[in-house]
C-alpha cells in the first residue's frame, strides 16, 4: 500500500525528529519514543517501495542500537572500542534525523516542494536554494563515483601519495562538474519560469489528507510526551 504525504507533513516530521534528537534520551521510555519515531519514516520508505534503502537504514540503526545497549559501557577502552563508540554514537544520534530527511528528499518531487514552500510563504530565494541543495546531494554522490573510477584507472588511489594531492585530484574535477551542472540547472530553471515576477502556479494540487493530519498529531504528541518525561518528571 502506498501512502502519499503532503510535503508539508514531511517537513514537519523532519522538524520534530531533529528536535527530539537534540534532547538526549536517558530513560527506556524516552529511548522507546525515539526508536518509534525512527521506525515511522522507515515504514513510510517501505510503503514507497524503496526497500533497499529502508533495509539498509534498519540494519545500520539496529546494529548500532544493539551494540550501544549490550556491548559498550563507559568503562570500555582501547582504540577498537573508541572507534566503535564513535560509530555507534554517530549512528544512534544522527540516524533518526538523517532517515527522515532522506525520506523527505527522495519522495518529494521538486515541483511539489516548491509549491509547498510557496503555500507556507517562504521567500523564493530560500525555497529555490533549498530545493537545489536537496536535489544536489545525489548528484554529488554520482559525480564523485565517476571521478573515483576515473582516478582508479589512472592509478591514483587512497593510501599512496600525499594527502594534499588526493584531495586536489578529487575535489577539482568535482567542482568543475558541479559548476557545469549549475549552469544547466539555471537554464532549466529559466524555462520553468523561476525567478519571474509573476506568481507561479503549480500542476500539483496540494491538500492535507487524513493521513497527514494523523501523522502530524502523532509526532506532536510524541514530542510533548518526550519533553514532559524529560524535563518535568
Amino acid at each position, binding site marked *: 500500500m502506498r501512502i502519499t504525504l503532503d510535503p508539508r507533513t514531511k517537513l514537519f516530521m*523532519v522538524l520534530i525528529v*531533529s528536535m527530539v*534528537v*537534540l534532547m*538526549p*534520551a*536517558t530513560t527506556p521510555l524516552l529511548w522507546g519514543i525515539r526508536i518509534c519515531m525512527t521506525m515511522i519514516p522507515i515504514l513510510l520508505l517501505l510503503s514507497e517501495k524503496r526497500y533497499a534503502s529502508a533495509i539498509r537504514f534498519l540494519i545500520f540503526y539496529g546494529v548500532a542500537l544493539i551494540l*550501544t*545497549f549490550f556491548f*559498550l*559501557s*563507559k*568503562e*570500555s*577502552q582501547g582504540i577498537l*572500542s*573508541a*572507534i566503535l*563508540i*564513535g*560509530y*555507534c*554514537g*554517530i549512528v*544512534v*544520534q*544522527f540516524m533518526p*534525523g*538523517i532517515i527522515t*530527511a532522506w525520506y523527505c528528499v527522495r519522495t518529494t518531487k521538486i515541483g511539489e516542494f516548491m509549491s509547498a514552500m510557496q503555500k507556507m510563504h517562504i521567500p*523564493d*530565494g*530560500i525555497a*529555490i*536554494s*533549498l*530545493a*537545489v*541543495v536537496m536535489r*544536489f*546531494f545525489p548528484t*554529488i554522490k554520482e559525480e564523485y563515483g565517476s571521478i573515483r573510477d576515473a582516478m582508479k584507472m589512472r592509478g591514483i588511489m587512497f593510501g599512496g601519495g600525499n594527502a594534499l594531492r588526493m*584531495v*586536489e585530484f578529487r*575535489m*577539482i574535477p*568535482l*567542482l*568543475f562538474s*558541479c*559548476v557545469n*551542472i*549549475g549552469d544547466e*540547472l*539555471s537554464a532549466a*530553471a*529559466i524555462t520553468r519560469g*523561476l*525567478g519571474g515576477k509573476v506568481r507561479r502556479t503549480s500542476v500539483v494540487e496540494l491538500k492535507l489528507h487524513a493521513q497527514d493530519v494523523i501523522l502530524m498529531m502523532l509526532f506532536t504528541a510524541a514530542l510533548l510526551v518526550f519533553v514532559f518525561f524529560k524535563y518535568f518528571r
Partner: protein
Amino acid sequence: MNSSKLQAKDFITIGIFTALLIVVEFLCGMLGYIHPYIVASYVILIPIVGSIPMMLFYTKVEKFGMISIMSVLLAIIMFVLGMGYLGAPLIIAAGVAADLIARSGKYKSFKKTILSHGVFCLWICANYFPVIVTADSYREDLIKEGYSTEYCDNLFRAINSKTISVLLILCFVFGCIGAVIGKKVVKKHFEKAGIV
C-alpha cells in the same frame, strides 16, 4: 530586469555551493568520532578544505545577499542534522557580517575577500555552542547515551569556555589562510581553464 536583485541563477549557485560545503563538513565531521581532539581541530580542517569551493563561490558573488542566504541554509541544515538551534543565530550573524565585509570591497577586492572568508568560517565554532553553554548536562547526557567517560573528559578538556576564544581566533586565522590557499587553487585550475 533589475540587476542588483538576486535572480534564479544566483539562487542555484548558492544551493550548489552550500551542498558542497555540507559534504566537506560532513566528511570532516566523521573524523571527529575517532578522537575528541579532532573535534576541536575542525577549526583548522574545515576552513582549509572548504576554502576551495568557497573561493570559487566568492568569484561568483556579485550581489549582496548571496553569502547571507548561504548562512541561513547552513543554519537550517545544521539544525536538521542535529547540531541544535543554539548556534543558528551565530551562523546567520557570521554570514551577514561576512557579506557586509565582502560588499565593502565590492566583491572584487582580494583583501576583503580574505577577511570575509575568515569571518564566515566562524560558523564552524557555532557548532560547539551546545557543548559550552550546557556543559554539565551535556556531559551527563553523553555518558548516559553510551559515550565513554574518557571521550567526554577529552572533549571537555578541548572545548570549554576558556578555549573557545582560542578556537574562534584559530578559526578566523585559518579561514584567512584557507582563503589564500583556495584562491591559489582556483587560479591554478579554474581561471586558466577559463571557467570563472
